[in-house]
């Protein structure tokens, strides 16, 4: 079956440009998460949606980061005026809600490089 799909797989941008990263979760998964993974580190939580509602955005590093999920399915993570420190792999995950024994399922990520 289809897993979590992210696009693009790789993105190179110049410092100061805006980027948009897309996540298509597993069908039927109500919860959607974004994580940032720096090289050699574990993923760090950015934000969490339940359907279209953004319930937690405490991990977003600055107001340059914005995430949306307008119809409760596909989500977009937008980074404005990118900086070199934004270079990382951005992972999206989805899960069922209310089912405690189910893990979050991760996509392959978008590797973002800021020049």
């Amino acid at each position, binding site marked *: 079956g289809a897993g*979590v799909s992210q696009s693009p797989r790789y993105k190179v941008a110049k410092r100061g440009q805006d980027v948009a990263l897309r996540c298509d979760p597993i069908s039927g998964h109500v919860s959607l*998460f974004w994580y940032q993974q720096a090289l050699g*580190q*574990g993923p760090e*939580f950015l934000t969490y949606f339940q359907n279209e509602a953004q319930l937690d955005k405490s991990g977003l590093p600055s107001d340059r980061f914005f995430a949306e999920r307008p119809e409760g399915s596909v989500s977009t993570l937008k980074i404005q005026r990118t900086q070199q420190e934004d270079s990382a792999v951005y992972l999206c995950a989805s899960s069922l809600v209310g089912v405690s024994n189910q893990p979050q*399922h991760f996509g392959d990520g978008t590797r973002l490089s800021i020049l």
Partner: protein
Amino acid sequence: ELKVEQNPLFLSMQEGKNYTIYCNYSTTSDRLYWYRQDPGKSLESLFVLLSNGAVKQEGRLMASLDTKARLSTLHITAAVHDLSATYFCAVDIDATNKLIFGTGTLLAVQP
């Protein structure tokens, strides 16, 4: 602030040997997850541990959870090269659905 620490950070072991990876966390939680990540790939779920004393096994891997000690272990039995990867534990604080990941353990199994 919650901290999740793994030990060791890097493990080189020979095929056929046994070893244990440790995951310590600093606050109360009864939901712990283990993931595997191959280079350039995403995270693959290995185990979901939801209560004190939980033990789960899949093939050569066995995971356990001691919530009182705030410790989880991932035991590798008779390692094979295919197990080479980075292993992460992750803690869900108070069922917030926000996972806090450990530092990761890079496992290299030598033939």
